[in-house]
């Protein structure tokens, strides 16, 4: 009886597999809208904790205090985030690029972390087109075969980064500034030489109270286009870089307990919009959102 009222959608999000033997994770693969468990195959949501590859001097004081024991060692930090805090993935941001550390050194640091943890690794550059184009291909080569998720890949540098990712067996994050038309455009360009089932879209996000509505509606529209309207160019999983946005708000900087709630609320909201991976900075918000959705 109930079946009469359920929708069957034509589109399906590509399932994406990261990591190597013993530490594989898959996500995406849904053929329905977020949390419509009753209608089809839901997304396999992933919670990533962020780890900086060098001293996170620009992080909120509350976080620096929280990670005081591990923040000088990315390997120890990543291990604790997985073993103690239960992260599904590690989201490693390459802030050492700001100090113009040699690319080979950065890549060696990434490889150490990737090999030290038993979950997949997401590696994220600065979002500066030239610097990322110089460093990410070196990371891709050094970590050849480790099946990482590399980004951000922009319209301005996809031709430099994506071929290296492809050659060395990594997936990529295609980033566009909150615009569904440009998300489609970049995927069309990538699709000419890069398999779209190895692409995750980052439409950029904002913290609650700082423009989250725009991020929400962009994600929601991308999901509707992909699932309901079967737009083949947008059937990639979505990532929401939440922690970085939340922990730069004055609320989170002033009061870590506020930051945790802010981070949880923002992440949950974006999961409702259609995010498949959310990246967080505090394990307590991770626990809160995970218990809310499971």
């Amino acid at each position: 009886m109930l079946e009469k009222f359920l929708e069957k959608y034509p589109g399906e999000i590509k399932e994406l597999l990261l990591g190597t033997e013993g530490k594989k994770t898959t996500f995406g693969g849904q053929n329905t809208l977020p949390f419509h468990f009753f209608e089809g195959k839901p997304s396999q949501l992933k919670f990533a904790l962020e780890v900086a590859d060098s001293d996170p001097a620009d992080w909120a004081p509350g976080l620096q205090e929280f990670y005081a024991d591990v923040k000088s060692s990315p390997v120890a930090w990543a291990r604790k985030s997985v073993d103690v805090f239960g992260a599904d993935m590690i989201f490693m941001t390459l802030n050492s690029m700001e100090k113009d550390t040699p690319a080979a050194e950065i890549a060696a640091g990434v490889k150490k972390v990737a090999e030290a943890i038993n979950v997949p690794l997401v590696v994220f550059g600065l979002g500066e087109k030239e610097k990322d184009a110089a460093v990410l291909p070196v990371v891709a080569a050094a970590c050849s075969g480790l099946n990482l998720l590399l980004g951000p890949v922009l319209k301005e540098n996809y031709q430099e980064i994506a071929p290296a990712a492809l050659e060395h067996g990594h997936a990529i994050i295609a980033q566009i500034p909150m615009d569904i038309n440009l998300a489609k455009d970049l995927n069309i360009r990538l699709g000419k030489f890069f398999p779209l089932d190895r692409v995750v879209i980052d439409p950029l996000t904002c913290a609650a109270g700082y423009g989250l509505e725009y991020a929400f509606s962009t994600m929601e529209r991308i999901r509707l286009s992909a699932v309901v309207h079967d737009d083949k160019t947008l059937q990639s999983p979505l990532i929401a870089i939440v922690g970085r946005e939340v922990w730069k708000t004055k609320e989170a900087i002033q009061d870590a307990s506020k930051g945790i709630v802010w981070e949880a609320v923002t992440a949950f909201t974006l999961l409702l919009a259609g995010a498949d991976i959310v990246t967080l900075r505090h394990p307590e918000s991770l626990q809160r959102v995970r218990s809310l959705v499971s």
Partner: protein
Amino acid sequence: MILIGENIQILSKVVSEALSGREASPLRELASKQAEAGVHWIDLNIGPARKNPTETMSWLVNLVQEAVDLPLSLDTTNPVAMEAGLAICRRKPLINSAAGTQDSKERMMPLAKKYNANVVISVLNDAGIPSDAASRAESIMETIDYANGLGIPTEDIWVDPILMPIGVSQADTLEVLEFIRMLPDIAPGVKSTIGLSNLSNGVPRHLRHIVNQVATVILGNAGLYSAIVDSFDQDLLALNAGEKPEIISIILRVMDGEDLDMAAMSLEEKNYYKTARIIMGRELYSPSWLEI
């Protein structure tokens, strides 16, 4: 559709330099070439004309009238410049444009009555640009009523639904089409016009023409009376004249909701088909829509 040539406009460097330096020949040439291309009206867009509004408009109107025998669409937001132009037009001109805003009702619209001119009235009102067909209708009915009250006859009113760039809102184009289709029922006797090139605003430059061309066929078919267009887009003028029937047929079939098999199409036909699907909201727009 009646075509209004948009090429004398202040955003063009040639035009703005010629206007400020009072060089007649580039402007005369632009007017003649547009007339030769086959448009029916010439738009004279001098922008807000803050400096010497009266002198600028009358100088331009006089020189264009000497060069061509087409009626003129006077395009300025400055009522002083508008009045100066209206006073000397030999053929019944078009005021481009008035709207439902208080300021426009008070300062621009009365000029249509005073000079017995045609007047573009857009759906814009003090609340902004209405978002769907119904609110466009509501806004325009109120403004038409006001214009009639001033003594402007319905047949002199050219309604502008305002076309938004395709990259801003594909859904809005469909609302505009619905509005154009309902216009004869809600306001019998009014004419209509549209700033057609605005649809392709933001589209990669080399792809703007095909968007404008397909939109010409679609809007014309929906019943639009006239459009302000690029006079030098030969394919647009050809399509408007009913040439290239096989392309027109593809576009109209997309309008009717048909899905066509691209396998048998030439590259040109494919491009028109894909563009029609974008404008009709059947495929999500992206700047690389022709490449998939």
